[in-house]
C-alpha cells in the first residue's frame, strides 16, 4: 500500500458500537443522521460494518450510503478492530460524495401517510356516502365513551359526536375539508385528528368513507389518586403557559405543511401545465408557509425559555468543537451565498460548562444571521477565547454593522430592526440570549455601522479541565 490515500476523517467506536470520538466529517454525518456524540452509530450501513468488523475481528471496507437531511451521502469507509487494547473499531473515511435527494413524490407520500394513519388509528368507523356512521370500533380507553355514544346513535353524522376545532360551520361539510381536521372528544384529554378515506367508485362520488381518529399524544399514564391533587394543579398551570408548544404548534404544523406541500405541487406543475406567474405565486406561498413553520418553532422555543422552571443541563463541552459543527451544518448555505465561514482550526479547543445542544442552537442562530445579512463574497469568522473564568465564542461578520441604538434593541422580543420578508421572526437573538443567561453566560454584540458585527457568547469556563487534580 505504497501511495495510500490520506484519510478524510477518523473515528473510534466502543464495545457497544457507540461512536466515542470522531473527526469533523464523520461527526457531522452522525449528527445529521439523527445520532448523538458519543452515541450509537446512526448510519445503518456503517453500524452494520462496524458491528461485523468487531465481532468477526476482520478488517472490513465498504461503500455506504446514508440519507443526511435532504442529501444522500455515499462514502467509502474502512473499519478495523482497535489495536489499542480497547473493544470497538477504528473507522477511516477515505472519500465521500453528496448528492441532493430528489424531491419526494407527493402522491406516494400521501399514500404512505394514509397507510400510517390507518395503522395507528385508535378509533375507526365506517361511514356511508353522507358521512353517517354505520359501525364503530375503538381500543382506546379514553374513546370508549365516544364509541358508546356513536353506537347508540348509529345512522347519524359522525361530526355530531365530536367537537371540531375552529369550526362553526353547519354540518355536513365536504369530506375534503374534514380530512385532517383536529378535534376534541368528550372523555379524552388528548387532541385528535380525523382522517377520511373515501371508498372510491371510479367516475362517481365516493359511496362511503372510512373514518380514523389518530392522536400525536399517547394515552396519559394513570396516576395514583392521593398524592396528586397538588401536582395536577401545578401541571395545569404549567400547561396553560405552554399553550403554543403543546397545543398550537402541533395543530398548526399539519395544515401549514399541507399548504406548503400543495403550493409545491402547483409550483412544480405536478398537476399539469400552468402559467409561469402562477407558479411563482405558488413559490411565494410555499416560502411564506416555511416562514410560518419556522416562526411556530421559535414561538414554542420562546415559551420554553420563558417558563420559570426552565433549566439547562450543563455538561463539559468543547466550544471549538461546537463551533466547527455549527459551521459544518451551515457551510452549504454559506457557500450558496458566496460567503466563507472560518471556524476554529482542528486541534484548537476551549472547554466550558454548558449544555451542548443549547450552545449549538445559539451558534446556529448567530451564524445563520451572519450569513443572512452579510454581503456576497465576504467572510464570517468564528473565534474562541479564554478569559479568566470565562470561555468565549465570537461570531464576526462583514455585514452592514449596527448603530448603538440598534445594538440596544436587537436582543428584544420580535425586534426586526425594520427588516421584513427575509424569513426572520425577530425571536432568534432574544431566545439565544435567554439560553445563554440560563447557562450562567451572556450574549452581547459589538459593532459600528459599516464595520460588521461581533456577537460574543460568554460562558463559564471549565476550570476542572484546566487543573485536573483540583
Amino acid at each position, binding site marked *: 500500500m505504497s*501511495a495510500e490515500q490520506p484519510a478524510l476523517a477518523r473515528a473510534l467506536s466502543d464495545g457497544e458500537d457507540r461512536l466515542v470520538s470522531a473527526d469533523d466529517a464523520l461527526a457531522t454525518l452522525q449528527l445529521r443522521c439523527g445520532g448523538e456524540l458519543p452515541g450509537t452509530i446512526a448510519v445503518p450501513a456503517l453500524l452494520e460494518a462496524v458491528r461485523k468488523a468487531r465481532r468477526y475481528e476482520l478488517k472490513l471496507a465498504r461503500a455506504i450510503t446514508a440519507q443526511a437531511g435532504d442529501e444522500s451521502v455515499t462514502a467509502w469507509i474502512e473499519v478495523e478492530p482497535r489495536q489499542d487494547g480497547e473493544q470497538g473499531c477504528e473507522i477511516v473515511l477515505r472519500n465521500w460524495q453528496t448528492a441532493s435527494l430528489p424531491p419526494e413524490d407527493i402522491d406516494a407520500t400521501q399514500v404512505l401517510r394514509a397507510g400510517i394513519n390507518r395503522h395507528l388509528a385508535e378509533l375507526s368507523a365506517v361511514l356511508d356516502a353522507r358521512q353517517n356512521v354505520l359501525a364503530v370500533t375503538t381500543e382506546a380507553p379514553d374513546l370508549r365513551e365516544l364509541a358508546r355514544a356513536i353506537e347508540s346513535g348509529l345512522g347519524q353524522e359522525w361530526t355530531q359526536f365530536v367537537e371540531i376545532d375552529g369550526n362553526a360551520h353547519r354540518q355536513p361539510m365536504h369530506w375534503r375539508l374534514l380530512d385532517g381536521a383536529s378535534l376534541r372528544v368528550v372523555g379524552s384529554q388528548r387532541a385528535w385528528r380525523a382522517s377520511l378515506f373515501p371508498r372510491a367508485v371510479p367516475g362517481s362520488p365516493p359511496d362511503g368513507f372510512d373514518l380514523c381518529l389518530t392522536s400525536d399524544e399517547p394515552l396519559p399514564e394513570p396516576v395514583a389518586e392521593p398524592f396528586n391533587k397538588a401536582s395536577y394543579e401545578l401541571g395545569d398551570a404549567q400547561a396553560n403557559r405552554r399553550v403554543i408548544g403543546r397545543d398550537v404548534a402541533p395543530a398548526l404544523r399539519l395544515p401549514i405543511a399541507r399548504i406548503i406541500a400543495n403550493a409545491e405541487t402547483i409550483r412544480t406543475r405536478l398537476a399539469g401545465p400552468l402559467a409561469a406567474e402562477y407558479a411563482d405565486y405558488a413559490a411565494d406561498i410555499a416560502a411564506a408557509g416555511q416562514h410560518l413553520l419556522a416562526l411556530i418553532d421559535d414561538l414554542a422555543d420562546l415559551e420554553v425559555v420563558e417558563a420559570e422552571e426552565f433549566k439547562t443541563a450543563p455538561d463539559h463541552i468543547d466550544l471549538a468543537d461546537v463551533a466547527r459543527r455549527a459551521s459544518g451544518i451551515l457551510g452549504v448555505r454559506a457557500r450558496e451565498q458566496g460567503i466563507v465561514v472560518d471556524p476554529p482550526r482542528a486541534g484548537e479547543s476551549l472547554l466550558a460548562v454548558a449544555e451542548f445542544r443549547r450552545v449549538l442552537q445559539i451558534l446556529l442562530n448567530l451564524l445563520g444571521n451572519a450569513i443572512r445579512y452579510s454581503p456576497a463574497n465576504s467572510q464570517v469568522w468564528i473565534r474562541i477565547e479564554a478569559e479568566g473564568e470565562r470561555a468565549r465564542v465570537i461570531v464576526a461578520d462583514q455585514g452592514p454593522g449596527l448603530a448603538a441604538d440598534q445594538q440596544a434593541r436587537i436582543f428584544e422580543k420580535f425586534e426586526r430592526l425594520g427588516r421584513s420578508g427575509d424569513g426572520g421572526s425577530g425571536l432568534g437573538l432574544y431566545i439565544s440570549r435567554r439560553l445563554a443567561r440560563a447557562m450562567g453566560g451572556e450574549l452581547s454584540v459589538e459593532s459600528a455601522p459599516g464595520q460588521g458585527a461581533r456577537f460574543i457568547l460568554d460562558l463559564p469556563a471549565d476550570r476542572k479541565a484546566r487543573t485536573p487534580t483540583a
Partner: protein
Amino acid sequence: MMESAAQFPAQSLSADGVEALLRVELASGDAAALNVAPILRHLIDNGANAMFSDAIIAGVRGMVCDLTRQLLDAQLRVKGETERIDHPTDNVAVLADALSANAALLGHLHALAFEWQLTRQMQARMALDPVLSPLLQAQMASADSQTASLAMRLLAAQARFCQEQQRMQLSLTELPGDLLHSVLVAMRTLAGVEADAEAAGAESVIRLEYHEARTRLGLASRLIAGMGGGGLAALSFSHAGTALFLTALAMASGQDRDLAVMSINETQLARLALSLRASGLKQSAVEEQFLALHPDIALPEGFELMSPDHAAALLAAAGPLAGD
C-alpha cells in the same frame, strides 16, 4: 441422498418390518428414478450461457476445493510444516462438504464463475479485454496520483482473478468479510477439540492478514465510489469492462453484487432492465446495454415511463435476499 437412505438399520426386524422397510425404500427409489430424466434433460439442454453449464459447475467445485486446501494448508503451517503435501482425502471431503453447505458462499462462488464466463464471452464478442478496460485505463492515467494508484492495484487484482479463474481457484483473502468469517467458523467447528490449537492459530493468522479494502471487489467498489457522479460512466459495459460494470450496477441499483451478476443471465432479463433503470440510466442507455449483453432482446413497450425510484422499489421488494 440415495446412499444414506440405503443403509438399513442394524437391529434385526420382523419379516413384516423388513417388507415394510423395503417397500418404502422401493418407493423412494422409484421417485428418484423418475426425476433422473428431467434433471438430465435440463442439464444437457442448457446452453453455454446458462446458470448451470458444465463450466460453471466445475468452476464452483474447483473453488470450493481450493478454499478447502488453503484452510488445511494454513493449519499445517501453524504446526510448522511448510512443505506442500496432499491432505488426507477424508479431511478434504468433510471440510469441502461443510463449505458447500454454506448457501451464501456457494452463491458467491457461483456468481464469480458466472462473471468469469461473461468476461470471456465479452472478450470473444466485443474484443473487451478481461483485465484492462478503457475506463480502468483512463483511471490509471488520472492526474490524481491516488486514483491512479488505486486503479493500478485494481488492475493487479483483476489479473490475479482471471489467472485464478482459469485454474478454477480462489484466494481465501479475496472473499468478502462476511463469507470469510463463516468459512473460518466452519473450519473451527470441524477441527473439533483435537485439532483446535492448529485451527485457532490458522484462523488468527488469516484474520490478521485479511483486509477487505485490498480485495478485488473492495478495490472496485472504492474506485467507483470515488468517481461520485462520474460513476455513471461505469454503467457502460464496453467502457467499464465486466468487473467494474457489475460493481457499478450493484452500487447504483442498491443490490448485492452477486445478485447483480446473476441479473446478466438470460433468465433474469427483468432484473437487469430494472437494475439499469434503478441506477438512473436513460432509456437509450438501457437499450445500449441490452444491445451489448442481449442483442436479440427488445425492452417492453412503456418501459421508458418507469421512474428509477419505482424500479428500485420493485427490485427491493422482489429480491431473493430481500428478507436478509
